[in-house]
C-alpha cells in the first residue's frame, strides 16, 4: 500500500511510531501528483521542491492542499481569477498560522473564480476533472480541494463554503467535507465572497481526519470580529460515541421535485441504516426551504458586490493597460480582470442594494433569513441532526451547465439554507449510483454541534465502509 492511500490519522500513527517521516509522505504525494495532476487539474500552484525542503525542519508534519482563496504568505493566492493571477499575499490567513507548525503546503487548489460556482468550471485557469469520471465536474467551488483529496494527491485540504462549496464537491468526489458553524473558524485571510456566509472548513478522506483538521483550525481570533469565543474543544472525542436514540429529522422539502430518484433512494437508504443502528428517524418540515435559494443569491451577491470592490486596479492585482482616465482604470481593469460569473453576481448584488430596490430585495432577504434561522431553531428543539441529500444530483458532465447560470444555481439548493442559518453541516459519501458516481448525504446540526455531526457521521462511516468498497476509477 502506498502512503498516499492512507488517511491522515493512519499516517500520524506511523509518524508517531517513527516508521516514516514527513519526507516519505511528501515524496509519496509528489509522485502521485506527477502521476495524476495532468488528468485532474486540481492545482493552481504546486510547491514540490519547497515542500520537500520544509520536511527538513518539520519531520513530523503532514502535507496539505489549500484552496486558492486562503491567503498564504509568500505563495500566490489567485482566487482562480485573472484579477489576482500574480498576487502574492503579504500575510498568512489565521488558519494558515494555526496550521503552520505541523503542516506543509503541497499547493494551492483550483476553484471557481472567487468561489462563485458549483462545478469549478468558472476558474480562469483550468477545469478540474472528477477523479471518478474525468468527463464529469468535481463540483464547486472547492472542486480542486475535493478532487485532490479524492485522487489522493493531498492527504487532506482546506476549502471554503459560502453556499455549499465544501459539501457539494465533497459529495461529487466521494469524500468528507464539513462546513463549520459560522464563527467557529476565523475568516481572517479568506478572500471574502459573502462575509456573513463564508466559512473555511476541512475536506478529508474520512470523518476522523475531518475532526482532526477541525481541531487545528477552529478557535476564536481577535482579528475576526465574527469569530465566536466558545472554548476550544477536542472534536476527535466525538468519534466513536454511540448514536443510540439520536433523533434524526428528514425534512420532506429535500426529497421532492428536482431531486434525482437514485439520489433520493440512496438517502432514504441511509436513513434506514441509521434506524437499524438505533437512531430515531422522523420526517419533518423545513418550511423556508423554497425561499432559501433566492434569499441566498440576494445576500451573497449583495455582499460580494461590495467585497470585490477592492479589486479596482489601483494597489494590486490586474490593471488594464488600456485606459485614458480614472473611470477607465476601474471599468476596464474590472471588465478584463473578472470572469462572466463574477461579473454577473457583482451586477446582481449592485442591483439589489440600489436605492429603490433595497427594500424589495436585500431587506426582504434579511427578513427571510431570520425566518430560516427560526425554522432551524424550531427543528433543533426536536432533532439532533437533519439528514438530507448534499446535492439533488451526482456530478454532471463538464460543459453541460456552465452556460446556464440558473441551472448551476440549482445545484446549491440543498446546501444554502445551512449557510443562511449559520449552522454546521457535514457531507459524506453514501454509495455510488448506476454510473459509478458517488452520492453524498448531508447531516445538519445545531449551532456549535459539530460533535454530534462527527458522532453521527462516524457511526455511519464505520457501518457503510464506503472507502473500502469504492475507489475513484479515473474513467475516461
Amino acid at each position, binding site marked *: 500500500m502506498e502512503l498516499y492511500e492512507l488517511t491522515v490519522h493512519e499516517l500520524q500513527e506511523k509518524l508517531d511510531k517513527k516508521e516514516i517521516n514527513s519526507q516519505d509522505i511528501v515524496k509519496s504525494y509528489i509522485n502521485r501528483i506527477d502521476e495524476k495532476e495532468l488528468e485532474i487539474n486540481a492545482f493552481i500552484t504546486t510547491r514540490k521542491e519547497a515542500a520537500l525542503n520544509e520536511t527538513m525542519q518539520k519531520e513530523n508534519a503532514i502535507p496539505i492542499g489549500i484552496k486558492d*482563496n*486562503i*491567503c498564504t504568505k509568500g505563495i500566490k*493566492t489567485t*482566487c482562480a481569477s485573472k484579477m*489576482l493571477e500574480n*498576487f502574492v*499575499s*503579504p*500575510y498568512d*490567513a489565521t488558519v494558515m498560522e494555526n496550521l503552520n507548525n505541523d503542516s506543509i503546503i503541497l499547493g494551492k487548489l483550483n476553484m471557481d473564480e472567487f468561489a462563485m460556482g458549483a462545478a469549478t468550471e468558472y476558474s480562469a485557469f483550468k477545469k478540474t476533472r472528477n477523479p471518478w469520471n474525468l468527463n464529469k465536474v468535481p463540483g464547486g467551488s472547492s472542486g480542486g480541494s475535493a478532487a485532490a483529496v479524492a485522487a489522493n494527491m493531498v492527504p487532506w485540504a482546506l476549502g471554503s463554503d459560502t453556499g455549499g462549496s465544501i459539501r457539494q464537491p465533497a459529495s461529487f468526489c466521494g469524500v468528507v467535507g464539513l462546513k463549520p458553524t459560522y464563527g467557529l473558524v476565523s*475568516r*481572517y*485571510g*479568506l*478572500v*471574502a465572497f*459573502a*462575509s*456573513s456566509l463564508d466559512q473555511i472548513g476541512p475536506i478529508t478522506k474520512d470523518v476522523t481526519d475531518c475532526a482532526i483538521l477541525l481541531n487545528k483550525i477552529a478557535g476564536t481570533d*481577535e*482579528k*475576526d*470580529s*465574527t469569530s465566536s469565543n466558545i472554548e476550544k474543544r477536542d472534536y476527535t472525542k466525538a468519534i466513536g460515541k454511540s448514536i443510540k436514540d439520536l433523533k434524526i429529522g428528514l425534512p420532506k422539502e429535500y426529497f421532492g421535485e428536482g431531486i434525482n430518484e437514485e439520489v433520493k433512494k440512496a438517502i432514504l437508504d441511509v436513513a434506514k441504516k441509521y434506524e437499524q443502528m438505533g437512531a430515531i428517524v422522523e420526517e419533518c418540515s423545513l418550511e423556508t426551504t423554497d425561499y432559501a435559494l433566492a434569499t441566498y443569491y440576494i445576500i451573497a451577491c*449583495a*455582499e460580494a*458586490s*461590495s467585497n470585490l*470592490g*477592492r*479589486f*479596482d486596479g*489601483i*494597489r*494590486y492585482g490586474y490593471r488594464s493597460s488600456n485606459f485614458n482616465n*480614472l473611470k477607465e482604470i*476601474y471599468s476596464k481593469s474590472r471588465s478584463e480582470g473578472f470572469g462572466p460569473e463574477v461579473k454577473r453576481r457583482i451586477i446582481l448584488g*449592485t442591483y439589489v*442594494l*440600489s*436605492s429603490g430596490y*433595497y427594500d424589495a430585495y*436585500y431587506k426582504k432577504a434579511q427578513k427571510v433569513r431570520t425566518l430560516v434561522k427560526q425554522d432551524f431553531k424550531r427543528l433543533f428543539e426536536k432533532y439532533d441532526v437533519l439528514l438530507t441529500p448534499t446535492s439533488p444530483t451526482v456530478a454532471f458532465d463538464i460543459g453541460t451547465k456552465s452556460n446556464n447560470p440558473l441551472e448551476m444555481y440549482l445545484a446549491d439548493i440543498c446546501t444554502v439554507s445551512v449557510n443562511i442559518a449559520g449552522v454546521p453541516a457535514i457531507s459524506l459519501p453514501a454509495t455510488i449510483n448506476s454510473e459509478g458516481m458517488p452520492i453524498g448525504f448531508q447531516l445538519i446540526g445545531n449551532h456549535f454541534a459539530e460533535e454530534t455531526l462527527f458522532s453521527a457521521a462516524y457511526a455511519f462511516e464505520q457501518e457503510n465502509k464506503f472507502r473500502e468498497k469504492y475507489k475513484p476509477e479515473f474513467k475516461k
Partner: protein
Amino acid sequence: MSREDYEVVMGLEIHAELSTKTKIFCSCPTDFGGEPNTHCCPVCMAMPGALPVLNEKVVEYAVKAGLAMNCEIAENCKNDRKNYFYPDLPKSYQISQFDKPLCNHGYVEIDTKDGKKKIRILRIHIEEDAGKLNHDEYGRGSFVDLNRAGVPLIEIVSEPDIRGPEEADAYFKKIKSILEYIEVSDCKMQEGSLRADVNVSVRKKGDPKLGTRTEMKNMNSFRAIQNAVNYEAQRQIEVIESGGKVEQETLRWDELQGKTFSMRDKEDAQDYRYFPEPDLGMIHISKEYIENVKKTLPELPESRKKRYIEEYKLPEYDANILTSSKYFSNLFEGAVEKCGSAKAVSNWIMSDITGYLNENEIEPEKIPFTAENLAELITLIDKGTISSSIAKKVLPEMFEGEEKSPREIIEKNGWVQISDEGAIKEVVAKVLEANPQSIIDYKAGKDRALGFLVGQAMKETKGKANPGMLNKMFLEELNK
C-alpha cells in the same frame, strides 16, 4: 428685494479626527505625516482577506462627544458600508454608520447678538477617514498615501438651525472648543483633522419652507466658511431674484477666486448602496458604560463660565472669551492659581495675548508659554520689578524667543524697572530743564503737561522708570 429680505439657513456636518493612538479598524498609528504608506497594514490597505476589528476607544471617544453635546446614546447601533470607487478609498467602501448612529438628538448653545441660541444636533456617528492623493506637479499622475486611511472620525450633523455666517462661525467654534475640552480630537484644522461640509439655502424671511440647499465640502478654516457662505448666499439670492431655481448640488469653494464651483454633474448622482457591515457585529452600549464615560468628562465650558462669573467676579463677556477655548481657559486657571489675580490674568489674556494671536494669525493652542510664565509676568508687575509698558515688551519675547521665563527675559535685556529715588530725581530734573514750556503750561492749569513730562522721562529711561515714582516726583517739583 435685497439681501435683507432673505434668511440664510445653514446646517453643518463637522468631521473631527479622533485622537486615539491607533486607527479605527487596525492597530496602525494615527500619527499625522510620516513617509507615505508607512502607517499601514493589510487591514487599512484593504488586502484581500483582511478584516476590520473595531477599536473600542473610538466608541468611548464618540460617546464622550455625544454626552458633551447633550445627545442620547444609542443602546444598540451598527456599522454600515458606504460603497463608492475612489483611489483614496482602498476597500471601495467606507465603513460608516447609516441608519443607526451612535449618538442622536443633542444640542449645543451658542451666543448670538440676540442672546443664547440652541443649535440642535441630529446625530453623531463614527466612521473611517480615507487616504490621501498626492497629485504629481509634473502631471505624471497621482500617488496614493494610505497613512490616513482608517483614522477614526466622528461626523457631527447639525439640524438646519443655523442662520447666517456669524452663527455658523459661533457653532463651529463651539464644537471645536468642546472637542478640545473633552480631549477626543486635537482639532488641527491645517492638518485637516477638523473640517466641515456646509449646507446653505436661502428663503424669504417668514417663509416656513426651506429653500433648496447646496453643499460645500471639506471647509477647513473659519474664514473660508464665512467667505464661502456669504458668496453662496448672495449667489442663490441672485438666482432666485432673476427668476431662476437653485439646483441641489455639491460645490467646491475656491478661496483664491472667492467663488463656488459645481463639483459633480447630475448624471453622476451617487448611490452609495449602504448596507450593514457584515464583518462587524452590533455595538451594544450599556447604561453602566455610559455612566462610566460620563465620569471621565472634564468640566465643560458652560460650567466653567458660570464659575468664573461667580468665583472670580468676572464680567460675563470676559468669562465667555476665556472659556471659548480650552487653551485660554487652562492658561487662565493655571495663572490665577499661581499669582492670585484673576482680573489681571483675564485682562492680559483678553487684550495683549488675544491681540498678539489675532495680529499673527495664531490659534490659542499654539501659545508657546505656560500658565506659570504668565503668572510670573503679572507678579513682576505687581511687585514693581517692571512697569506695564516693559511688560508689553516682554510678552512678544515670550511668544517668539527661546526663553519663556519673564524674569530671565527682563534680566537678559536689562529691563528691570528703575525705582532708585536718586536716579529718578536726576531724570526728572533733566526733563524739566529741557521742557520749560511744560512747566509754564502746568502752572497755567494744563494738567496734560504732567503726562507729557512723564512720557518724556519714560522715553529717557527707555520705559524702565517706575511710573508711580515719576509721577510723584514731577508733582513735587512742579508744585514747589
